[in-house]
C-alpha cells in the first residue's frame, strides 16, 4: 500500500503518463502510416553516417527520416520539460529502493539521474566505462538484435497483438532483472563505488 502513496505523490502519475504515451501509437499511424519505434533511429544514423557498405545499413534511410525528426523532438521535449517544467523536489522512489541503492553507494536524489554516476568527470573512469560505454553498447546492440526496444516491441508490437514482441518484452525484463540483481553489485564495485 505504501507504493500507492508513493505514486500519488509523483509529478505525473502513471495513469496520466501511460495513456498519453500510448496515444503516440495512433498519432503516428494517423499522421502518416508510421509504426512507433525509436531504436530504429540509431540504425538510420548508422546508415546515414557510417554505412561502410554493410548490407544491414544499405537501405534508403531517407525514407525513414521521419524517425529522426521524431527523436529530435524527444530531445527538444527533454529540453522544454527540463528547463521550463522541471520538478524542484527530489525524486521520490520506494524506500526499499532507496535502501538497496544506498547499500550500493547511490544516495543523491536531487535530479532524475544520480549525479554520482552521470557526470562528465566520470567519463574517463571505470564509472564511465561501465555505465556509459558498456551500458550504451548493450542498449544499441541489444535493441537492434532484438529488432526493437520498449517502444517498438513492448508498446507498438504488443498493441498490435504481435507475439514475437511479447517474447522480446519478456526478455527485456529478464535482462534487466539479471543485471539489477546478479551483475550490478559487482559492476558497481568494479566502477569504484
Amino acid at each position, binding site marked *: 500500500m505504501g507504493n500507492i502513496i508513493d505514486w500519488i505523490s509523483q509529478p505525473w502519475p502513471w495513469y496520466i503518463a501511460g495513456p498519453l504515451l500510448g496515444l503516440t501509437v495512433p498519432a503516428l499511424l*494517423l499522421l502518416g502510416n508510421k509504426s512507433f519505434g525509436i531504436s530504429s533511429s540509431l540504425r538510420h544514423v548508422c546508415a546515414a553516417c557510417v554505412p561502410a557498405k554493410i548490407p544491414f545499413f544499405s537501405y534508403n534511410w531517407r525514407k525513414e527520416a521521419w524517425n529522426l525528426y521524431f527523436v529530435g523532438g524527444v530531445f527538444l521535449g527533454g529540453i522544454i520539460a527540463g528547463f521550463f517544467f522541471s520538478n524542484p523536489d527530489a525524486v521520490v522512489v520506494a524506500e526499499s529502493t532507496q535502501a538497496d541503492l544506498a547499500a550500493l553507494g547511490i544516495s543523491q536524489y536531487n535530479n532524475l539521474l544520480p549525479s554520482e554516476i552521470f557526470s562528465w568527470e566520470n567519463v574517463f573512469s571505470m564509472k564511465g566505462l561501465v555505465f556509459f560505454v558498456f551500458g550504451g553498447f548493450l542498449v544499441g546492440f541489444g535493441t537492434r538484435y532484438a529488432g526493437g526496444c520498449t517502444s517498438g516491441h513492448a508498446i507498438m508490437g504488443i498493441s498490435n497483438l504481435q507475439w514475437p514482441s511479447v517474447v522480446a518484452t519478456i526478455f527485456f525484463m529478464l535482462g534487466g532483472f539479471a543485471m539489477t540483481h546478479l551483475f550490478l553489485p559487482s559492476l558497481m564495485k568494479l566502477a569504484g563505488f
Partner: protein
Amino acid sequence: MKTTIEREIDTPIECEAPNLQRSQETGLALLKYMVVGVFFGIILVKSEVISWFRIQEMFRLQSFFMYGVIGSAVVVGMISILLIKKFNIKTISGEKIKIQDKEFRKGQIIGGFIFGLGWALTGACPGPLFAQIGTGFTVVAVTLVSALAGTWVYGKFADKLPN
C-alpha cells in the same frame, strides 16, 4: 555512379518498422513527427520514466509505477489499433493504415536479454536517452554514441549471429 547507388538502396533489407506511407513527405511535412516527439519527450520527463531511479525501482519490483506506465500505454495503443481496424480509419492523407507484422527471430530472445542488461545499467531505453540529454544530462551523449556503436557492430556481424 549515383544511379547505381540509388538502385542498390532502393532494394534494401527491409527495416523492422518500415515507413508504409505511399506518398512522399519532405521538409516541413516531417515537422509534424517532431511535434509528436516533443510531446512524447515532455511526458517521458514529467512522469520520470527517464529516471535511472525509476528503472531500478521497476527491476527491483518495489513499485507499480513503471508497470502502470507501460501497461496503460499498451492498453491505449491496443484500443487505438482495434478502433482503427474496426472502423477502417484512414491517415490524414487518406491512405489505408498498414502495420508490418513482427517476425519471430532468435534475436528477440538473445538481443532482448542483452538490451535488458543495458537498460538496467543506463536507466534508459533509446527514447529516454534523447530526453535525458535534453534535460541537461549532456554526459548521456557518450552513452548515445556508444549505443550507435553497438547498433553498428550488430549490423556489421548481423549475418554471423544466430537468428
